[in-house]
């Protein structure tokens, strides 16, 4: 019997290392016909901002080779709506429910975090300083050490539970950014958010996305994500949560070996709505086959 438990610190204990990534799993409710949520380490619900956002116009999606671009632009009904309407529906899910919190300015992050702090059944927030699809804020905070330092330290003052910070890959040195987040008080970092990209319809000579650029995700980003997880895991002491193109248990194991303590599954949920539980089973099977008693023994197990 493999011990699948992962302790990410400050009260965030996962039944197993597998979580579902924000923006790819709705509020969990959309997937209950396919997935027994109690089999997952956690679910991270849709990016939420202090104020409601309509998001970007249609079209918001373009398929690419082994992946997709999106420019949804954080469509959501705001933190208060989440607390009043969505939280009561999902709070009794038998898994960790994390809220992905984003903002347009520092105040939005701080106020949002303050409001969520008192929600008993939300053990952590994933602070989104890396959304490439919003004009103000979002990624702006996540691409400089000063920016991330400021937002993380201000949120840290008002948020008392586990604070995970989701990092952008659209930077020159992600290890520096991760280090800045750690120093400012993050309990963990998750990476990578989407890579900025673009798609063009040659026949129409027009961009395929309404706002021209978008975030690339899916199997195609995996090598980039794996490299960044490896770099960040070497640089920081806090746990690293790896994501980016994970589509099966082997991918998940690779991220753990590169230094991730847990992983998130994103775009793969669109292709196989039941993939997350399959990854859990596959990781267990891997540990048994390689005689690991605890899945945590995989963390940073890369032999060089």
């Amino acid at each position, binding site marked *: 019997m493999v011990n699948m438990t992962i302790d990410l610190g400050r009260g965030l204990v996962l039944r197993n290392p597998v979580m579902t990534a924000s923006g790819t799993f709705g509020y969990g409710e959309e997937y209950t016909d396919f997935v027994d949520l109690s089999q997952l380490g956690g679910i991270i619900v*849709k990016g939420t901002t202090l104020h409601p956002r309509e998001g970007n116009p*249609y079209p918001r999606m373009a398929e690419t080779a082994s992946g997709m671009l999106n420019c949804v632009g954080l*469509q959501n009904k705001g933190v208060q709506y989440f607390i009043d309407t969505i939280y009561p529906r999902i709070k009794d899910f038998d898994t960790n429910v994390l809220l992905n919190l984003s903002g347009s300015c520092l105040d939005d992050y701080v106020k949002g975090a303050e409001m969520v702090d008192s929600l008993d059944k939300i053990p952590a927030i994933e602070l989104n300083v890396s959304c490439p699809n919003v004009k103000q804020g979002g990624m702006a905070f996540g691409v400089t050490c000063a920016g991330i330092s400021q937002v993380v330290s201000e949120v840290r003052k008002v948020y008392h539970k586990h604070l995970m910070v989701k990092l952008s890959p659209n930077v020159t040195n992600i290890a520096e950014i991760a280090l800045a987040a750690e120093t400012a008080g993050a309990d963990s970092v998750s990476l990578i958010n989407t890579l900025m990209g673009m798609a063009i319809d040659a026949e129409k000579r027009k961009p395929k996305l309404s706002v021209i650029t978008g975030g690339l995700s899916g199997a195609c980003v995996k090598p980039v994500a794996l490299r960044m997880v490896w770099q960040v895991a070497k640089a920081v002491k806090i746990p690293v949560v790896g994501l980016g193109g994970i589509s099966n248990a082997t991918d998940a194991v690779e991220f753990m070996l590169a230094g991730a303590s847990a992983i998130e599954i994103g775009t793969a949920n669109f292709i196989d709505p039941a993939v997350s539980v399959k990854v859990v089973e596959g990781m267990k099977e891997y540990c048994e086959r390689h005689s690991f008693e605890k899945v945590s023994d995989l963390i940073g197990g890369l032999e060089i």
Partner: protein
Amino acid sequence: MEEAASAAFFVFLSRQRHVNNMKQIADFKLIAKEDYGRSVLLRLQSERSLPDIVPGQFVQVRVDGSPSTYLRRPISIHDVDFQQNEISLLVQQVGEGTRHLASAKVGDVLNMVLPLGNGFTLPEKCEKVLLVGGGIGIAPLYYFAKVLVEKGIQPTLLLGGRTENDLIRLADYQKFGETHVTTEDGSLGEKGFVTMHSIWQKQCFDKIYVCGPKPMMKAVAKIAAEKDVWCEVSLENLMACGLGACLCCVEDTVDGHVCVCKEGPVFNIRRLKW
């Protein structure tokens, strides 16, 4: 009267299958295929019993073995046979994904997530109903017309295509009710678009249901709005998940951006900002 009502209720009950509204991810075997040039009819059978499916719902088909196709393809449900656990899809070859699906051979297995979205609102028995289909948009109207006839409602159909070749299975549609046809090249029925058909001058309807290219649906919606007739349209925005999670397929409505996959694909035109 009361006895007749209870007898009818008993028939209703005995026809009811066990309620099964859970979505499934299931493998379907291609058991028959009919070639219609640009489009193919795929008849697919599952070893599992089918979930409840209402007209207007769709499936997400995984496209295996096509390196350039990463996401599933949303395809409307053309016909259902609950006894045989069979679903039919009418697939038009638009891009690489649908070309690959159309090349499937009898015996091949297709993985589908189903049923997705909300179907058409069923009319009252006394209402006069018009189903308008354009191009491959005629696909979901087959199952819809079949269900209407089963419920004792005879729909009128208005089907349009570029040429007569687009009017796939026309003889089968004609069995369900009075069927009118337009083609852009005049090869069959009245020449022009569905909106130009003489039926609009001759007949009145209580409910109009439309599926086709967006400009065509907008044009029919405009006629319906002018006549103040209740009207539903079925949209096909680009989508990724099909479950309401990714928020890619949004349509602008009076309630803001809503997912076509989850809140649609069928919408009342009054809800849309057209």
